[in-house]
């Protein structure tokens, strides 16, 4: 029996009878990477956690889970502890949530070595430093005494990987280890993981929602949906010739940056020649922080969007793209420079009610997280009616009718009028947010990472909706995203931001195909590509 992990017909039922996993079967051989892909709620994390005996309270398990030849299900706590210590380790999505902020990186690593492996302090220290070097942290000796807050997310995730390796596990379970990280950082982490896998011959179970990432990293993939395995097999086969309908839909919904044919160019020229809808000139913003040097969030930003056009702003976290958006919609005031929307100056704070309303009419925004940007207490219909009554002076009946029209325009219906945000799914919430923004009939719509909290299939629906609204209403869109594929899908033109500066701008197709600035090139190169294409 050469297989490291063998899951056969795994089922999981909560104490109230809800079945969360249904007949899951998969296996991992030593040195092999198996991807577990699917959208949120598909049960992929739950499956992986079962391997380490991390199951919900009072749940019932069925089937077999064999790790390194030993049965996990029903095993006594002592055996599971031993498996966790020696056979398998796990790294999680958010490294900052998984580390004690009060203790040093060294403490974090040596604790396991000393308590589980019984090493002396000096041995543990030497081993920990060796591990920190293994995950390619630049100054292991120095890092040993540092605290987590001194580390960036990417560095911390490497510490977590080093921590997982202290026990020299045969199987490493990675649960969305790069989802909270920037794309360039993701590329570094993935490189570290691949290198470690090769050197140690570890098996890896890699959980991700990102199909491109799975394709770049995994030998085989298992596609899950609603607690079932939809399809599994060789990664290349699954992604190039999917058998299950679900897999096919998932692949279609995933935006890619692969170079397309030239039909994108035609769209780029279709923009109307009228005067610019948005003009940003020399926009500058600094944040003064107490006791620290000021942060220059946006440096002399210049951009322009023609009427009915769309512009993407791409950048990693901290690049200033959100600050730029907040200044354009008036949530923050710039230090210098001006914002003109449809020819009117909009960068000063509105002083009167009339100014405030005029400002709102010129620009609206859809926020990143629809779970936070809708008032939890206010039903969808009411949220839209409030806006209509503020701006249009409509009476109750007219506002209700118009709210329904708007909900229908974004693909929702009458039964969503009275629905509170809690009862709506992420995609439905974002549709409500879009309908609410459209209710004002703004001249410019700013979307700040409006789809990054959504599953790919839902993201595809929202992007289609935006495309449709643009075609129907001639809406001008400023689309902010960290995802090059998404920006390409929505925008004719794009700008790339880094540390507050716009480093490059041009048609999005060109940026992807022939990036000029080295940073743009780095961004494009960091996006995961299927391993078979990279090799070719």
């Amino acid at each position, binding site marked *: 029996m050469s297989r490291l992990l063998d899951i056969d017909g795994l089922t999981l039922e909560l104490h109230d009878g809800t079945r969360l996993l249904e007949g899951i079967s998969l296996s991992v051989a030593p040195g092999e990477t198996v991807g577990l892909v699917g959208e949120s709620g598909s*049960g992929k994390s739950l499956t992986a956690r079962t391997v380490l005996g991390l199951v*919900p*309270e009072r*749940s019932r398990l069925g089937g077999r889970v064999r790790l390194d030849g030993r049965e996990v299900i029903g095993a006594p706590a002592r055996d599971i502890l031993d498996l966790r210590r020696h056979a398998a380790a796990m790294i999680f*999505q958010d490294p900052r949530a998984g580390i004690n902020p009060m203790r040093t990186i060294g403490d974090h690593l040596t604790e396991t070595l000393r308590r589980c492996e019984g090493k002396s302090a000096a041995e543990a220290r030497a081993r920990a430093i060796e591990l920190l070097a293994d995950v390619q942290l630049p100054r292991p000796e120095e890092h040993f005494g540092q605290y987590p807050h001194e580390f960036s997310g990417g560095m911390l995730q490497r510490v977590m990987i080093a921590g997982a390796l202290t026990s020299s596990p045969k199987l490493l379970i990675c649960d969305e280890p790069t989802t*909270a990280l920037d794309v360039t950082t993701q590329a570094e982490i993935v490189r570290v993981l691949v290198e470690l896998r090769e050197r140690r011959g570890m098996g890896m179970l890699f959980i991700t929602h990102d199909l491109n990432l799975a394709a770049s990293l995994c030998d085989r993939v298992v596609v899950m949906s609603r607690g079932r395995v939809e399809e599994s097999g060789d990664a290349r086969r699954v992604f190039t010739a999917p058998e299950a309908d679900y897999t096919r839909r998932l692949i279609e919904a995933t935006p890619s940056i692969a170079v397309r044919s030239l039909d994108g160019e035609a769209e780029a020229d279709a923009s109307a020649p009228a005067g610019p809808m948005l003009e940003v000139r020399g926009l500058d913003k600094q944040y003064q922080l107490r006791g620290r040097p000021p942060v220059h969030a946006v440096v002399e930003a210049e951009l322009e969007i023609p009427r009915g056009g769309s512009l993407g702003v791409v950048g990693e976290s901290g690049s200033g793209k959100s600050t730029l958006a907040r200044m354009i919609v*008036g949530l923050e005031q710039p230090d210098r420079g001006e914002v003109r929307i449809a020819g009117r100056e909009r960068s000063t704070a509105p002083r009167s009610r009339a100014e405030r309303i005029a400002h709102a009419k010129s620009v609206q925004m859809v926020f990143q997280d629809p779970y936070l*940007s809708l*008032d939890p207490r206010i039903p969808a219909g009411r949220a839209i009616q409030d806006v209509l009554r503020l701006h249009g002076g409509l009476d109750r009946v007219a506002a209700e009718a118009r709210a329904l029209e708007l909900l229908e325009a974004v693909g929702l219906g009458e039964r969503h009028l009275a629905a509170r945000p809690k009862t709506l799914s992420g995609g439905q919430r974002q549709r409500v947010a879009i309908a609410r923004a459209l209710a004002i009939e703004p001249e410019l719509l700013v979307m700040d990472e409006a789809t990054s909290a959504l599953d790919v299939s839902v993201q595809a629906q929202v992007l289609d909706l935006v495309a449709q609204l643009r075609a129907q209403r001639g809406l001008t869109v400023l689309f902010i995203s960290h995802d090059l594929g998404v920006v390409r899908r929505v925008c004719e033109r794009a700008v790339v931001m880094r540390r507050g500066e716009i480093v490059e701008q041009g048609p999005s197709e060109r940026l992807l195909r022939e990036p000029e600035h080295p940073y743009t090139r780095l961004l494009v190169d960091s996006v995961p590509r299927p391993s078979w294409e990279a090799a070719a």
Partner: protein
Amino acid sequence: MTTPTPTLAVKVLRAPRAHRTSLVFAIACGVVAVMTLAAVFAPFVAPYPPDAVDFTAVNAGPSAAHWLGTDGLGRDLLSRLVFGARTALLGPLLVVIGSTIIGMLLGLLAGWRGGWIDAVLGRVFDVLFAFPSLLLAIMAVALFGKGLVAPVIAMSIAYAPFVARLTRALVKAERTRPYVAAYRVQGFGGAWIAFRRVLPNVTPIVGAQSTLNFGYVLAELAGLSFLGLGVQPPTPDWGAMINEAQSGVAGGYFLPAIVPAVAVVLVVVAVNIIGEELSDRIGGGVPA
């Protein structure tokens, strides 16, 4: 960068344990409900008028005629307890309502506006915290005379900082939420957002915490009338009943003192159980 959203696995693993407190909670609700109903319908519930004197039974033990016995003047303890519940419950209720209104308005002002208003209000709260509420109430009695009104107003003010501090913290957190930014972008004014949207959103948590104050206030008001500074005779009141029973205790008649004391403890404990359960359910255990 994508915000990490809790996956299904995390949600399932973090699911709250089944409520084992529900029976205790139900009993506490029952106690408060019975007391409230008794207070409201006192004339129909009580077997005798509260000041009816029965000279044949002075300091009598429980009997068919007097279920809980009588006090030193031969008044029926059960009837006095029932009528006494009116002032015992009304006082704290008014204080809770008063302190919640004052506290929420000040807390909203401090949390929403921030800056110097926040700083000034914060110091004012600090000063008020330094005053024992009972002392403030006694001062109010000294200035405005005995009775229920002066202590209720004084304690409403004394308890307002507790509410204000919580409201301020919640409003400050709420202010940075994207939904508030969304309202701003839509063109709504600051006052509208604060009063019509943010305030209602923090009310359940603040309300649940305020419920907890009810018990403390009840105990303190009972203490005040025990000292003879609160509700004045002939109006029956639990604190005053304990005071009147003092001489009886020396003579070996414990019941007239124990009955109202037990009532006070029972209500305070019941209200605290309800308040804590409510805070847990609504606020997810927000510390006061």
